């Protein structure tokens, strides 16, 4: 099937099997290996990317392991690789770095993309809200504390106009 979409602001056209999962399309067909696979049952969130549907104005986060590439036809997709602009890190990425919010780094792209989505909807969150906002992402290394702090710091930096 023909697939036409925008990934990280680049227009892409591909021929795909309908059953090709979006995460596999991103990783194997487009070579964007920053998005990771950690489970089979839509729990870990390591595969989280942002998608904007044609009918929508906003990007929403979704688990790309539970979405077919063909469902993203006509959509815009943003992956972790698309977050930094011209080599400059996004405030969320900087905040993760400053706060030691990652250890092995495997779950990190998923957390960062989810944080992005969460902060769009909750620009001035408190810790509890952040914990709820990232409850679809699993981390086995950090115990989440520094991730929550990073997102809090990022929200403050992003809130400053």
């Amino acid at each position: 099937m023909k697939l036409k979409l925008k990934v990280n602001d680049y227009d892409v056209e591909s021929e795909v099997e309908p059953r090709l999962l979006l995460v596999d399309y991103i990783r194997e067909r487009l070579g964007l290996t920053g998005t990771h696979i950690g489970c089979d049952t839509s729990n870990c969130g390591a595969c989280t990317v942002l998608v904007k549907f044609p009918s929508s104005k906003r990007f929403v986060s979704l688990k790309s392991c539970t979405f077919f590439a063909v469902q993203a036809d006509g959509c815009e997709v943003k992956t972790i690789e698309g977050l930094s602009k011209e080599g400059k890190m996004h405030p969320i990425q900087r905040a993760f770095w400053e706060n030691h919010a990652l250890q092995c780094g495997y779950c990190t792209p998923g957390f960062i993309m989810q944080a992005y989505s969460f902060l769009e909807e909750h620009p001035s969150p408190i810790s509890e809200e952040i914990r709820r906002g990232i409850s679809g992402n699993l981390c086995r290394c950090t115990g989440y504390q520094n991730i929550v702090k990073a997102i809090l710091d990022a929200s403050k930096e992003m809130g400053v106009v």
Partner: protein
Amino acid sequence: MAITAIFGARVKRKEDPRLITGHGTYVADITPPGTVYVSFLRSPYSHALIKRVDAAKASALRGVLSVYTGIDFKGRIGAVPTGWPITTDPPIKIPEYYPLPLDRVRYQGEPVAAVVAEDRYTAKDAVAMIEAEYEPLNAVVDQEEAVKSGAPQLYDSVPNNTSFVWHLQGGDIEAAFAKADTIVKQRLVNQRLQPTPIENRAVLALYNQGTGDFTIYATSQAPHIHRLLLSSMMKIPEHKIRVIAPDVGGGFGSKITVYGTDAIVGLIAQDLKRPVKYVEERSENFLSTTHGRDHIQYVELAAKKDGRMLGVRVTSYANLGAYLSTASPGVPTYLFGLMLSGAYKISAVDCKVYGVLTNTAPVDAYRGAGRPEATYLVERMTDLLAREFGMDPAEIRRVNFIRKEEFPYTVCVGIQYDSGDYINTLEKALELADYKGLREQQKRLRENGKLIGIGISSYVEMCGLGPSRAVRGTGFALGLYESAVVRVHPTGKVTVLTGTSPHGQGEETTFAQIVAEELGVSIDDVEVVHGDTGAIPWGMGTYGSRTTPVGGGALALAARRIVEKGKKIASGVLEVAETDLVFERGRFHVKGAPSKGLTIQEVALSSYQSDRLPQGVEPGLESTVFYDPSNFTFPFGTHVCVVEIDRETGVVRIVKYVAVDDCGRQINPLIVEGQVHGGIAQGIGQALYEQSVYDENGTLLTSTLQDYALPTAMELPEFLTASTVTPSPHNPLGVKGVGETGTIAAPPAVVNAVVDALSHFGVKHIDMPITPEKVWRAIREHSR
């Protein structure tokens, strides 16, 4: 030791930029041209004879290159070795276990056939087309059932499924029990867990037809050990294999083990002469990557009525799973038994461990590896004893602690704790938690029918594995020293080669900090290389909290040798006596005449120009050290956990968690905190949420992340952490390691808190994981 700003500084990690921008390189990310993919057919039965495996239809599927079964590797593949055949009498029985079984499967999920195809989707389709027939056999999953006569036997060579009976004795246990005023008894379950690194295992094998060399990318915690064991399984000489662990997404012990699947993938690469990749799915990880813990312990603690503990007797049944894995025999024995006196002056220990095989996934090291099981035992029994005597749990610990002045302290089983100040961390933790206030609050709330509990856990753990003599004495196949190469380049930049293999612990940063400190260079000028047997002379890997004390220790010594040699070179170039030179802040200069000197960068260049070197000094500025520590290291601390229990539903909520840990000197407090957070999170996971559950047929009921209850950010509290610093006297840097302390300290802190909350009902103990239902039942049973 000079202390500059960089050692001990909260430096941002050097490894982060690539990881936070999605440019990390994990094994699954690497796809050389021509890569083909392996998918395994796995047994649905936990114990069965394999009657027939017919791959005709699968092989005919377009895109499938080959299908392998056990017969295809017969004679060609070696048994999966265990690296820790512990010394027992009678000798340990190690069943022969092959990567692809010929005629019998012994755990659910055991690989039975391997499909190789052009892409993963086709491989998966082909697996579904393989026709396999099994004759199910009776299975046994519980270790106490497995040792009984009449139980299904896994191997003819291992009667009663008992691989070994291990016995450790220290002091005079009979005398201790004879003198006791009280003996507290308890059956404790340290439940089976699934380590669950977020990255599943993966392996990519490349074979060079011209040279006969293999390059194998693996999600490994110890590439050199991986290479050694692969060499044995694949029957390929060690020097023809290169193992590379690139970025690895967590391991927690489950990636120390070398799995049969990796050898299979390697041999397939040799056959097909194309890169061959296998990426585990999560359900495969849960079914066949090593599990952790799974001890059933019968404990007796003898004490005097003033609270002094005299002796502890333990009989433990350790479930090892269906075969012995890389380190599995040593984990429930030495790493457990040696720590049974905990932080206390218990003068007698008697520990018997049955190592039992069952129709379940193999069990091996999981963060803490034996020490969480020991600490849980000691800290639960201490609380039970306190309760027996009506003593405050903090007080009974004070009574029994080894005192600061008594270190180094040799415990009754013979190991020597290097340094400690247990009372200090206890008092600090109690103060931070406002223990007095909490007890008052508890009293008030109880009057209103509300349930809060306070749990204390004072631990000491044995890590920094380890002194080779001691380790070899336990039967471990190799010593546990570590290597470091410090290579200063002509331009003065530094490359470090470490035999450790970090996968999240941050050594690309902390090791650069060590070198920056020792050599007076910028950490930006230091590159830390790890994980590649092609680059690194030899290494024993990362686990057992050894990377910092042993790997870092080797590195510090190597860096100091660089300074020694640098001094010699500087004396040659400056034409002064070596004794007239000092080295500070990256510069060699004449004592009292600072202007007459050379930077280390200038010395480096000189070493390569090598025209003014003193007699006997070779060109170059590089040193290699193999450091064999003289002892283990013993980090310690106290954690305090406060819980609130919903009486009606039994739901436990942690409302406060305080951790005071002492890991000796800290290279980077930011990273130390991170390790403590992560360890506590896993410890809380064990205490309240996680459990690997097999039904009586050996079907794993927790084979997905929907069923295995890994905590999210909403289940975990904020951790209040603090530390004290009691250096290790024998370590070159005074560091002890901290990676496992949280997992060791947290479970008893949480369980003690829950039991404390329910103690006025008469509840004495609840086994982990303390689910709401267990709490609810305990309240009901005791309210009747």
